[in-house]
């Protein structure tokens, strides 16, 4: 319980310096994303910005994510297969 409270306090302490919620001028919105928003139609011909980032700019992360699913699937098969009873 104490660990939980300390962790929560630390996290809240960290938010004190963060930009406000919904601020359109925060660094997160100004640095990398403008290019995603403005150029998505031109560079990737996809109107949906989330898709263009997911499949084009950051497609490698999506490959990793599919691998995660495959890993989980193979793990579950290996862990849960019922053995034939011996004797």
């Amino acid at each position: 319980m104490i660990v939980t409270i300390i962790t929560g306090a630390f996290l809240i302490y960290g938010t004190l310096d963060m930009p406000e919620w919904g601020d359109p001028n925060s660094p997160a919105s100004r640095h990398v994303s403008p290019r995603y928003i403005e150029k998505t139609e031109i560079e990737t011909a996809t109107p949906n910005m989330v898709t263009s980032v997911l499949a084009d700019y950051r497609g490698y992360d999506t490959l990793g994510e599919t691998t995660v699913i495959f890993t989980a699937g193979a793990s579950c098969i290996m862990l849960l297969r019922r053995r034939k009873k011996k004797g």
Partner: protein
Amino acid sequence: MIIEQAPVLIVIIPLMAALVTPLLGWIRKDICYPWVILALLVSVMSAATVLNTVIHEGVIHYHMGGWLPPWGIEYVIDHLNAMMLVLVSGTAFLVAIYSKRSIEQELPEQTVYFYTLFLLQVTGFLGIVITGDVFNLYVFLEIASLAGYALIAIGEEGAPLASFRYIILGTVGACFYLLGVGYLYIVTGSLNMADLSGILPELYGSKVVLVAFAFFMVGLALKMALFPLHVWLPDAYTKAPSVASALIAPLMTKVAIYVLLRLMFTIFRPYLSFELLPMAKILLIAGIVAIFAGAIMALAQVDFKRMLCYIIVAEVGYMVGGIGLANSVAIKGVVLHVMNDVVMTLGLFTVAGIISYKMRSHTLMDFKGLFKKMPLTMAAFVVVALSIIGVPPTCGFFSKWYLIQGSVLAGNWIFIVALLFSSLVNIVLFFRIIEIGYYSFDSPESHGHDHDGDSVISEAPVSMLVPTLLVAVIILLIGLYNQSIIANIIQYAVPKL
């Protein structure tokens, strides 16, 4: 053209091979083993090519999909990366050769999926080591962790519970890492490591960066089993199948230490890590406590593999304490020790696997009389033991030497005392085993184990023996050539402090 694409091939070939393995295994179970070895051989050769290129030409930047960073993902390979790549893929290759007989004995029905998860875990580790983007690192960290959870859970009695505990603690660690990435993203807007290290210096006074750093540290400390967050390690590595522990034990903790080095020196420059925050003191104290705790708990163990797990905890203490010394000699020692520890832990766990294969258990008493019956295995074991104790000309001596030099330079005597104490404890631990190995008071029949009808234990099978002997030879080679390794590779991997 292949040489240009080598950075990607290192990660993609095991991944694609892992996807094909269940199909091959459905056709014939026996072709999984050569397939795995082939895939890892290509990966090792690509890693060696990359290392060669980095030594001769400098840092490699590889942009995924042609998008420039920070809008796309890039792979940055400098000297530290290239060394870790060769280590990880080489270890995986040796364990794959070693795995055939052990898997036939311990896991006969689950062979196909075992090899699939083996390749996936290697993919995960290679992806962590090579990437230059913090979120990509999280994805591959989860691939490696998930494969690890499943590989550990199919072991002996009590393995599922050990794996469940590892899941809970490992997920906490990975989520803290993700929280750190999130906090950094909120104030910088970028996910690329080089970009972050450019933007962060203006933000050093911000509380967000401080909290992000703290969460990264705690998350990584859980993954690298730094005392007192090591509680998942002994159970998980002891009860896993011997091949699984031979793969995971040398690599998981050291890859986490690599991520720590990347974080502290590339992303948060040494100015933040050492001068603004008292990280040096904290890491040093954590390292010293870990060394003492690991050494003392290792003395109390009766089970060989459990003893090795506590030795791993102490070794992590060396490395973390070495980073805490904060001068470049010590960090040279830490990087050299990462290399040495991968090889030494691999050697120890392969010997444990051979003992487990022959005697079907892995307690200390199983070593009785083994010097006469398995001379080659025990010779390799003695070389690895000397390296952990720190006897020249094995590699363990040189990394301890650099750490002691760094400690003298920093004026910290408690760390030297901890190192020497740990060496003494290791001497006691290993000479105890060597003594048990020399004397065989009882005849083999009265052990009570069933040796498949043989009453004489013979030498280990060739496919298990060759990797073990190779590891012993590598330990000696690293020790003899350590000067040229440091001059060519490690020197450039260490920041100027």
